[in-house]
């Protein structure tokens, strides 16, 4: 045993080969990474669960207000964003299969498409928020005509805002752990863990929106 520290993860390996990990073999490391990511996704779901619970009880208290306030949301924007996210989820899933087949260019194309979808989503969201602000239905610029919608709108901004933050984080992960290494031909059937984990996170972003859209825009 030497007095030199080993790096925990050593990526100095030929392309397509899994990195050397100081204390685990490749199969164990792959299983550990996947379990770790699913656990982390679970914590994200629980984070949003609090807001879903608050939404449930506040809607129970103020059904009329929630119905009326929901009609002020832009259904077309919400529906369009839903479709954008679903398609981006599809390309993220395809990217994992590409990585498993060693098709790094396919990873770049598909993750890239998901990333662009994320950008479109954010632009539409930004448009929605600016419209709300213009009409005084936004925090800090409340118009007293719409102040009685504040319970619904407060939850709407918290939920969709935190979701948008996760879209940004997801885009960063897709680029840094997926697109960037794939451009150097890093992945193969033996090693594609970052692609799988990045895709899992992206699917979570889609998953949350699958529940947000009907609750906020449709049912109110």
């Amino acid at each position: 045993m030497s007095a030199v520290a080993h790096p925990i993860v050593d990526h100095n390996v030929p392309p397509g080969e899994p990195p050397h990990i100081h204390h685990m073999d490749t199969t164990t490391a792959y299983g550990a990474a996947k379990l770790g990511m699913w656990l982390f996704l679970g914590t994200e779901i629980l984070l949003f669960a609090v807001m879903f619970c608050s939404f449930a009880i506040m809607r129970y208290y103020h059904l009329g207000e929630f119905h009326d306030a929901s009609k002020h949301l832009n259904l077309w924007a919400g529906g369009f964003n839903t479709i954008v996210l679903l398609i981006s989820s599809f390309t993220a899933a395809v990217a994992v299969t590409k990585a498993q087949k060693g098709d790094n260019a396919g990873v770049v194309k598909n993750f890239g498409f998901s990333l662009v979808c994320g950008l479109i989503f954010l632009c539409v969201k930004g448009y929605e928020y600016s419209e709300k602000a213009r009409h005084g239905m936004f925090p800090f610029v409340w118009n007293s005509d719409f102040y009685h919608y504040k319970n619904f709108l407060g939850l709407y901004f918290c939920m969709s805002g935190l979701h948008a933050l996760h879209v940004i984080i997801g885009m960063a992960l897709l680029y840094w752990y997926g697109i960037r290494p794939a451009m150097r031909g890093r992945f193969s059937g033996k090693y594609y863990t970052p692609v799988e984990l990045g895709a899992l996170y992206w699917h979570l972003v889609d998953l949350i929106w699958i529940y947000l859209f009907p609750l906020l825009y449709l049912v109110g």
Partner: protein
Amino acid sequence: MAAHASAAVNEELNYLNWQKGIWSWLSSTDHKRICFLYLFTILIFFLAGGVAALLVRTELAFAGPQIITDPHTYNVLFTMHGVFMIFLFVVPGIPATLGNFLIPLMIGAKDVAFPRLNLFSYYVYVVGALIGAVAMFNPVDTGWTFYAPYSTTTGTSVSLMVLAAFVLGFSSILTGLNFIVTIHQLRAPGMTWMRLPVFIWASYATAVIQTVATPVIGMTLLLIIAERAFGAGIFDPSKGGDPVLMEHLFWFYSHPVVYIMVLPAFGVIGEIIPVFSRKPLFGYKMVVISSMAIAAVGFIVWAHHMFVAGISDFSAKFFSIVTFLVAIPTAIKVFNWVSTMYKGSISFKTPMLYAMAFVFLFMVAGTTGIYLAMLGVDVYYHDTYFVVAHFHYTIQGGAVIGLIAALHFWFPKMTGKMYNETVSKFAFAALFIGFNLTFIPQFILGMEGMPRRYYDYPAQYQTLHTISTIGAYLNGFGYSFALINLLWVALFGKVKAPRNPYNSLSLEWQTQSPPLHENFAEIPVVTEEPYSYGTPTGRGH
């Protein structure tokens, strides 16, 4: 190898001396070193929270103002006591310290599953603590429970403080996640689930709670910040919100958090008692099942903190019944520990003294908890000193005693040195007497109707308060003495500890003391159950 060649005193290569210098400690991904990073930091907050407590007790020693002349200062002090002790000391507590040190060693692994994440979670904790420190410039006065609408409207730095708690929670989540994956993936060959030491089972159950419960408080705290920042009115009745909703969301985490605090201590006691009774742990399977049961049932009892908050009768009855249920697995554990000791060959070393104290103190804690679970009784006791005494018996008499017991038990393994038994027993005596002297009067005060969080009281309560304050000083002295003793011996002690001074059978004791950086020269293969002390076929004797 160099490690075996130089068997000379003190120069054996181990995780403490193979790399030197402060930067090697601050950047180390070694779970054993990360244990010490956490240990020193949480003990600082133990001290700070303890000082806040002593200031509170000094003020309450006699009726009338003593050292605190304004109620706001008093509110700040008990808030700080609660926040420091819970979020910054006991919740990281045993898992971040002993859990980090022991889990890989006990399962026969070289490190946790994600060592870099481990170090990162420590620095997340530090950032949370620093944010909390900034909040101290306008310290919070809401109590550690941050109830709305006071917390959403008061002028003190609530947003910063709850943000600090959010960040600290994130550290807790990452630690829990790391431990779950470690225990699933990195067990040595032959280390099946039913051969794991109970400390591992307890840590696993704790890690699950940490990972799934903490996001709930995280989001609740963010909603408080949102409420303060732009008034969505979710928790404010004047805006159509419900303050009881905030309590539901808060206690959904804050009840399971008490199991995060105490389950690892159960694990520690389960390790100490068989060793010092030279007998196998009684009912290993039931101890395992009860650990998981406590974690699970702990998630459905939260509203017993809210019986008089205005919840419906139906809700109160449901939560009362389920709270009785959660006492059962804990009682099973107490039964198993006592049965382990029965007809054993008991050795009254310091760790065993702490373990036995734990069993007694936790029985008081649990029983008084049952009283509080009874609706009619709770209507009277809620928000009195009875509750304060109950939760100090569980948290201090349970979790903190468990931590001190663990630090004594595994001290030779962690440092390679032995402390002086006489000194440690003296500290134990001061601590134990001081603790009971502080809190038994508080049970009586509660029964006599003394409300909690009050900065003053009528003269009729004074005698008991004075006794409680004397006890508090003795208690503080006991802790200081016990910990300073250990610190002194760790830094300057000369008595070298044998590899396995208590003849324990679990894996961490089969390696050298202190362990190698890599834990094991070769990963062990496990072939038998962990507690076969005194049995014909076991290795123990």
